C-alpha cells in the first residue's frame, strides 16, 4: 500500500514538473520581451530595460525558470505585473471562491448523477435509460456559457426568483451567499450530470452482471436488497474516479460561467491575467489548477484502492 502511494505520488510530481515547464516556457517564449509587451510600443527603451531588470526578465530563460521554481518552494508566487500586489493575495481568495462554487455543485450533482446512473442501469436499454443517457450526455455537450445565459434569462429576468450575478453583496450571510451561487451551480449540474450518470450506469451494469450478484439472487435475497447491499456499493467505484477528474475543471475551468455571473473565481483570475498579459499570475494560477487536479486524482486513486481490495493487494505484491 505504501509503495502504491509512493509510486502515485512520484508520478504526480513528475507530471507537475512537466506542467510547470510547459506553462512557463509556453508563456515566456513569446515574441518580444516582457516589459515591452507590458509598457506598450511607445515606452522609452530605458523604461523597458528598467522594468525588465525589476521583473528579472533580463536574465536567461533558464535562470528565470529556476528563480520562479525556487520562489514557489519558498511559498513566494511572485508579484503581479498588472496590480503590483503579491500573486498569492490574488490567487488564494479566488481559489476559495471557486472551491465554494465547486462544493455546492458537487453536493447537488453527485447524488443526482449516481441516482440517475443507477436508475438507467436498472432499466438498461429501455425508455428511462435512453432518456437519462442521451439526455444527460446532450446536456453535457452544451457549453456552460449557453446554460448560463439561458438560466439567467429564465430565472433572473423572466421569473425574477434568483439573482443574475454570483457575487453576493459584501457582509451577507451564509444563506444569501448560497442563494447567489444557485444559478451557476445549476449550470454545473447540467454539465456534469451526464458524465457522472454515465460512469455510475456503467459501474452498475458491470456489478449487476457480476457473479456475486447472481449468487445473491440465487440464494434468495429480495431484488431490492441485492441492489442496495451488493450492486450499489460496487457501482460507486468508477464514479469516484470521474468525480475527481472533474475537480480540475471545476477549479479553473469555469472561465465562461464566472464571466457571465461576474464571480471572482480562479477562472476569472486566469482570464484577466491572460488579457492583461500578467504572466506571474497566469503561471502560478495554472500551476495551482494542475495541483488541484493531481491531488484530486491522487485522493481518488487512494479511495478507490481502499474500497477495492483487488487493487489494494495487487499493488502491494
Amino acid at each position, binding site marked *: 500500500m505504501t509503495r502504491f502511494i509512493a509510486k502515485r505520488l512520484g508520478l504526480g510530481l513528475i507530471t507537475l514538473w512537466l506542467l510547470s515547464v510547459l506553462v512557463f516556457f509556453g508563456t515566456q517564449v513569446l515574441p518580444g520581451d516582457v516589459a515591452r509587451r507590458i509598457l506598450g510600443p511607445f515606452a522609452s527603451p530605458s523604461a523597458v530595460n528598467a522594468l525588465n531588470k525589476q521583473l528579472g526578465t533580463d536574465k536567461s530563460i533558464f535562470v528565470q525558470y529556476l528563480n520562479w521554481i525556487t520562489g514557489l518552494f519558498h511559498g513566494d508566487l511572485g508579484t503581479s505585473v498588472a496590480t503590483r500586489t503579491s500573486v498569492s493575495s490574488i490567487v488564494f481568495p479566488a481559489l476559495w471562491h471557486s472551491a465554494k462554487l465547486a462544493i455546492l455543485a458537487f453536493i447537488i450533482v453527485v447524488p443526482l448523477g449516481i441516482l440517475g446512473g443507477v436508475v438507467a442501469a436498472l432499466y438498461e436499454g429501455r425508455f428511462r435509460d435512453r432518456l437519462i443517457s442521451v439526455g444527460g450526455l446532450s446536456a453535457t455537450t452544451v457549453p456552460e456559457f449557453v446554460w448560463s445565459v439561458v438560466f439567467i434569462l429564465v430565472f433572473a429576468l423572466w421569473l425574477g426568483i434568483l439573482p443574475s450575478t454570483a457575487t453576493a453583496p459584501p457582509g451577507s450571510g451564509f444563506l444569501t451567499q448560497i442563494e447567489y451561487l444557485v444559478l451557476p451551480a445549476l449550470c454545473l449540474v447540467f454539465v456534469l450530470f451526464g458524465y457522472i450518470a454515465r460512469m455510475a450506469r456503467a459501474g452498475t451494469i458491470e456489478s449487476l452482471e457480476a457473479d456475486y450478484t447472481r449468487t445473491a439472487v440465487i440464494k434468495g435475497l429480495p431484488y431490492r436488497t441485492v441492489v442496495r447491499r451488493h450492486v450499489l456499493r460496487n457501482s460507486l467505484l468508477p464514479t469516484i474516479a470521474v468525480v475527481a477528474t472533474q475537480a480540475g475543471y471545476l477549479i479553473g475551468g469555469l472561465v465562461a460561467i464566472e464571466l457571465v455571473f461576474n464571480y471572482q473565481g480562479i477562472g476569472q483570475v486566469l*482570464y484577466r491575467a491572460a488579457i492583461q498579459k500578467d504572466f506571474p499570475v497566469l503561471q502560478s494560477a495554472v500551476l495551482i489548477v494542475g495541483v488541484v487536479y493531481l491531488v484530486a486524482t491522487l485522493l481518488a486513486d487512494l479511495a478507490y484502492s481502499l474500497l477495492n481490495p483487488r487493487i489494494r493487494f495487487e499493488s502491494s505484491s
Partner: protein
Amino acid sequence: MSSFGEPIGSSVTAAESPAGAEPALGPGPDEAKVIRRERLALLLRSKTFIAGVVILGFWIVCAIFGSLLAPDDPLRTNPVSALQAPSSAHLFGTDTLGRDVLSRVLVGARDILIVAPLATLLATAMGTLLGLVTGYFRGFVDDSLGRLIDAILAVPVVIVGLLSMVALGPSTVTVIFVIAVVFTPVIARTVRAAVLSEVQYEYVAAARLRNERAPYILFGEILPNVMGPVLVEFTVRLGYAIFTIATLSFLGFGIQPPAPDWGLQIYQHYGLISGGYWWPVLFPALAIASLVIGVNLLSDGISQAFER
C-alpha cells in the same frame, strides 16, 4: 516489447477487442461486408442517429446556403434600428448595431462548421498516428508520451486556450491549434488501446513473420482494423470541438468579429440580458445547443452501432 513474445494461442482467449469477440484471424472480405451492412441497418433504425442527422443536416444547409436563406445581409449595420425586439420585420430582432439576428444565426453556422471538422480531422489524424506508433512500439516513447499527455490533461481545455491565445494571439488558427493540442492526446489514448488489442491477433504476427516493414504493418494491417474506434472517436470529438470553439469565441479568443459566429454574438450581448434585451443572446444560444446536441445524437448512434 514483452507482449510480442507471448504465445499467440493464449492471447486469443485473453483478447479484449472493443468490437467484441471477433475471430482470431479477423473477418474475411465477405464477413466484413455483412458487418458493414448490419451496422448501416442498425444506424438507420436508430432514432437518435436519425434525429442527429436531421439537426446537423439543417445546419449544414444553413452553412452552405445561409446567405441565400437569410432575409437580410448578416453584416449590414443599421444604427437607427438597433436592439429592436422581434417583430414581423425582424423575426429574431436586431442586435446593438442594428443587424438582423435571424440572418446572423442562419449564416453563423458556416464558420463553426468549417473550423470544427477541420480541427477535429487534424487532431484525429495526429492522434491516430501517435496511437498507432505508441501502441505498436511501446517502451520509452510510450511511457514519456503518457506522462506528457497527463500533464496536458491536468489543466482544463479553456486554460490551454487562454495560454495559446496569449502566445499566438486570437485567431481561427489559434482555435485549430488548441483543438489539436488538447484532442490529439485523448484520441491517441483511445487508438493506442485499440492497437494494443489488435497486436495480439495472428494477422499481425503473420505479417511480422513475413518480414513486413513496420510502416506497412501499422498502416496496411492494423489501421484498417481500428478504423471503427477512430470513426467513433472522430464524431465524439467533433461534438467537443464545437463546444470548445463556441466557448473560445465566447471568451473573445476564437472566431473574430464581424463574423456572425454564435459564441461571439453571445459574448457581445450577454451584458445586455439584465436590461431585458434577450433576443441577441437567446437565439444564438439555442443554435449552439441544437448543433452540439445534434452532433451528440449522431455520435451516440454511431457508437451504439459499432459497439455491438
